[in-house]
Each structure stands twice: as C-alpha cells, then as structure tokens.
C-alpha cells in the first residue's frame, strides 16, 4: 500500500476488517456495532462483509458483553468488543478486573484471554457527562491488562492489529476527538511493537511525555516553544502498559527536564506513575522536578466549560517555564 491520507476512524475500521480477514476466530460485538456500524462508525460494514455471526449487536449490558467475550475467548475465539463510551465500560469493571485480568494467572497460564476491549475515550468533543471520561488509570493499575492509546491513524491501525494478535486482554483506548482528523499513513509499514514508546519530535531543552489525545497538544506546544527558541522533545508513550522505561528515561536524561501531559484527572493516575518513575530513575539527571499538566481532580466538565479541563498549549508552556531554567 502507498501512504494515504485517512482518519483514525477509517484506520481502525480497516484494522478490524483486515484482522477479520486474517483470522476467522476474530469476532466483533457490542452495542450498535452491527447494522449501524457503531455510533462512531468504527465497525461500519463489518456485518455486511462478514455476516452477523462475526460482527453482531448484543443486548444492552456491558458486563454481559465482556463476560460473554471472556467465555468465547476461553473457547477459541478472539473477541473484539466495543464499550460505546468510556463511562459505559464501568458496568463491566468486575468482569474486567476479577476475570479478564486474572484468568491467565489463575489458571497458571493454561487459559489466556485474547480479548480486545475497545473504548472510545476522553473528551474534547463537547459531549455531555459520562461521554468524556479519561479512564486509563483504572485499567493501568490493574495487573494482567495491556493498555494502549494511539495518537494517530497509522499507529492506531498498527496497534489495533497487534492488540488483536496479542494473547492477553488489551484495553484499547481510542481518543474520540482524534477519530476524524486526517493524516498521512502507510498502513503497510509496521509500527513499533506493544511496549515501545516513540520520540515523535526531537528536542534538546526539555521532554514532553504524552499519550493518546494529549500527543497532538504536546506537539503543538513544542511547535510554539520552537518559535520562542526553546527546543522541546516529545515522547508518545503509546503503550501505557507495558510501559517503555528505556525510551522514556533515555529521552528525559538527554534533556534533563520533563513535563508529563495527560487529559485524565491527575491524582493517582498514569501521569503520577510516569512522573514518579522518571524521577526515581533519572533523579540525578534532572535540573528540576518533573511537572504534570493534567486534567483537574474534578468530574469531567459540561461542554461549555471543558476547555478549562483539557491540557492546553499555554498550560504546557507555563509548566515548561517552571522547570527552573535559571539554575542550569
């Protein structure tokens, strides 16, 4: 395939289609994923192409969807389920934490669960409450789950294919606000494996560490900083679990300063973990403590107020300014 311009939604749809072609045991189900093709159209056309035994609607119950997926995975299938919106994955929490995450360990490796739980997640779309939660911390804290968050079409395609091929349950977080932004992507060229972060912009003065919806904002901030003559490096974490200490720490050591950027509430979050482990591991290379630019510790705001909650270029640059430049 030649590089082409496409949306993340389109790339994800392509990934599902290609995975279903590649392996008959791959099934797609959830709420409205069949005839409708999903409320975001990520599963568009799959029922028409593969029939309603491979892509089908379920009754309206998320614990049921994941619980049935676990059983199907126990019996040879590779289910890819959709949780319609982030907050609507919460009814499946017990199935996720007490079963999906624990089954392989419980059975001493005899029963692995190759399940992908797709979650259209995070905000910036003017959605009403329950439609904009950044719920990655709940999943990242749960041993036994892989947690991925792509930031663009190409990576979304590659990571979803890898997630479907993984023999472990993967929570696949799809930034809603990036679904329909187009970018160049060559779906044929492989992406780095699960567990690898990528430096997506070179820089020498400080390192911005971001994932999912925060990556484009971090890149924007780096662009703006460049105008002001400050060179910011940007790392796209991609794989929250497993986390790539090697790439992230090498990047931070190379600049000596870091800011973690994430949309989720900051307290006891993935950004706490990144800040903590970077400071633990790079302490003596740091000129200043790692700063965090995150959502505030509040319920996600209503549409008219959400711009306050989202990490902005300004907030990122303010944090960078606070990295005690005078001292070095």
């Amino acid at each position, binding site marked *: 395939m030649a590089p082409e311009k496409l949306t993340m939604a389109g790339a994800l749809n392509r990934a599902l289609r290609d995975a279903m072609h590649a392996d008959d045991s791959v099934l797609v189900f959830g709420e409205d994923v069949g005839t409708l093709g999903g409320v975001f159209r990520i599963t568009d056309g799959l029922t028409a192409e593969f029939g309603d035994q491979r892509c089908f609607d379920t009754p*309206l119950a998320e614990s049921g969807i994941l619980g049935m997926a676990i059983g199907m995975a126990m019996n040879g299938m590779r289910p890819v389920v959709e949780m319609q919106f982030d907050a609507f994955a919460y009814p499946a929490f017990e199935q996720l934490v007490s079963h999906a995450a624990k089954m392989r360990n419980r059975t001493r490796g005899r029963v692995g669960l190759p399940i992908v739980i797709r979650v259209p997640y995070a905000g910036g779309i*003017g959605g009403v409450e*329950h439609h904009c939660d950044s719920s990655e911390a709940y999943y990242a804290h749960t041993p036994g789950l892989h947690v991925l968050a792509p930031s663009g079409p190409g990576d979304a395609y590659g990571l979803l294919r890898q997630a479907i091929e993984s023999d472990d349950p993967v929570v696949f977080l799809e930034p809603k606000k990036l679904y329909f932004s187009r970018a160049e992507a060559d779906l044929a060229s492989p992406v780095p494996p699960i567990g690898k972060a990528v430096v997506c912009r070179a820089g020498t003065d400080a390192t911005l560490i971001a994932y999912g919806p925060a990556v484009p904002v971090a890149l924007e901030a780096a662009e703006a900083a460049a105008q002001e003559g400050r060179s910011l490096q940007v790392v796209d974490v991609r794989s929250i679990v497993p986390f790539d200490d090697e790439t992230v720490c090498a990047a931070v050591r190379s600049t000596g300063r870091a800011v973690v950027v994430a949309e989720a509430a900051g307290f006891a979050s993935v950004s706490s973990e990144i800040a903590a482990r970077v400071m633990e591991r790079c302490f003596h290379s740091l000129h200043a403590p790692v700063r965090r630019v995150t959502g*505030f510790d509040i319920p996600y*705001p*209503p549409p*008219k107020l959400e711009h*306050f909650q989202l990490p902005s270029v*300004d*907030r990122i640059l303010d944090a960078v300014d606070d990295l005690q430049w005078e001292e070095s």
Partner: protein
Amino acid sequence: MAFNWHGEQNPFMTRDAAHLLPSTVPVTLIDPDGDPVPQVGHDLPDSEALVRAFAALVAARRFNDQAYALVRQGRLAVYPSSHGQEACQVAAAHVLADGDWLFPTYRDTAAVVARGVDPVQTLTLLKGDWHNGYDPTETHVAPLATPLATHLLHAVGVAHAARLRGEDTVVMAICGDGATSEGDFHEALNFAAVFRAPVVFLVQNNGYAISVPLDRQTAAPSLAHKGIGYGIPGERVDGNDVAALLSVLGAAVGRARAGEGPQLVEAHTYRVQAHTNADDAGRYRTDDEVTPWLARDPITRVETYLRGRGLLDDDKAAAYAETAERLAERMRAGLNADVPADYRDLFAHVYAEPTPQLREQQALVADELAREVR
C-alpha cells in the same frame, strides 16, 4: 422455617403467580381512530383529566419540536426526542401527587416539563452549561439519567427512605426497552420487591435501543413478563393511548401508595424520530416501518375522542396551542441566551468543602486567566 411439601411454611414460597402476569394484549381505552374500547378492570379517566392531558400533549409536542429546532441551530449539544411518545411522558407526570418523585432518563425531558419543571432548566444538560439545571430536592425530579437503568436503584432508595419515615410518597421511575437488559434493572426491581418499595417502573418500549430492535434485546413474551420473576405484577399498556396510560399508571400508583409494593408497567410505543439528532435511523430501519406509527399518533387520537364528545372545540384547541407556543418562546429565550462560563463552578461543587488540592488547581486557572487578560 421447617420444610414441608404442602404446608404453609414452604421456604421456596410457591405463591399464586397468575396475578403477576400481564394481559396478552396491551390495555387500550381509546383506539387509533379515537373510539373508546371497553376494557374490564379499566375505566376511562374523567373528561377533565383527559382534557388536561390533551393540553399537556400539545405542549409536549411543541416542546419536542422546539428542542429539535434548537439543536439544529446549535443551541443544544444534542437532543433525544420523545416525539410520538408524548402520551407516556404526560401520563407519567399527571398520575403523580404532590411530593411524589419522578426519575427520568435523557429522553424524558417532556415528562419533566409536564411535571412542572422550568423547560430551560430541564434542558441545561443538553445545552451544556452545566450537568443538571433544576433542583431535585425542591422539584422531587431526579437528574436526567444517562447511565442506563442506574437511576432505577436511586428511585428504590428514595421510595424506601420515605417509607421508613412513614410517608406515603410514590416514585415513578422511567426507563427504555434497552435499559431492561442492564444488571441494574434486575437489581432495582428485586430490591424494590423485597423491600416492598412504592415504585412504579414504567418501561417505555419504543422498539429500539439506538439501532438495536427489541428482538435483539430480549426473547421474553413481553417486557412486562419480567415482573413475575421478582414477584412484581406486570402490566402492558398501549403507549400511544394517554387514556389507557392514565388509567393503568394511575392504578399502579394507587397500589404502590396503598402499600402493595412496586409495580411494573410496559408501555408499547415507538420512537418516531432517530435516537438523537446525531443518529441516522435510515441505516437500520425503513420509512415503511415508521409510517403506520404516524397514524397512531398519541395526540390526534385523544383529540378525535374529545372533539367527538364536545369536550374540545377550536377555541379551546387554539388556547392550548397558544399556551404551548408561549412555552416554546420561553425555551428560545432561555436557550438562545449565552450564560457566561465561570471556571469557579468547576471546583465549587466537587465536595461540600473544596480540598486543598482543588484550591491549588483553581488558583492555577485563575492565574492563567489573569495573565491572558494582561
């Protein structure tokens, strides 16, 4: 609790089950042509109640149309319309007494307004200024529930609390056909039955959960057949017949208030419009399916009945339309007004007292804004 096959003390509680099963055909009192249908056990509401219901139906329809127009003008973020379901909306509100509670979903804004809540406050969630606009403690109307079936349990709690205090409050809790598949629906009906909580569960079966038709939601004979599994009487009613709804729901509210415990009512109606303005119903259903339902419109039916009996004439009808128009005006005025967004609201209500961390975070925003101004 000794066990004994034929004695009274059977711990497995085989009780008479028959009375818990719904009728095979939903209760109709006024048919689509406006003609009364005699029904054993269900009388037509008196004409005053029907006229009042008609006026409310006209207002509800106008409310739906106006909200739909406002969403197209970008004044509402999204709107899930109850167009075609107005009879359920009006009846759910009209059968309640002062002090009773209503637990609506996102689709039940017309019921909230019929209950007397300000239409602009009712639509705050969908306008996006804040999550919930009205005061639940003052109106006894719970916030519009989005996470499906979760609010049914809150309804049980409100009802049980009132009962523990010896109040005779009744709670009307509404959900859709799709929501009956959620675990919380099961737990709510079971808790209500075990505690004999005075809750009337109204399932507005409009045939769809977004794109998913009822037959993918359940294989049960009907949703009302779920009642017996909890020891709750289940009834089925024509959801486009406001007379039948007033009668069936009114009786259910009466039994709940009398201490007979929770009631389950399945209203058979139809979602005439798409799930919301953002939905494309053409992807999953044909106009041929919709058309017959337009002929079963809940308003024309009772209007024909009332006019046929001289209970409604052009003047009265015009007056109700005029009242409805004023409601629409109030909606336009309130929803076209831009409410200035105050960042302090974000931190003020997370806890009774903001935590030190929230104070720090609020100060951060204040500082940022101050510097923007400069």
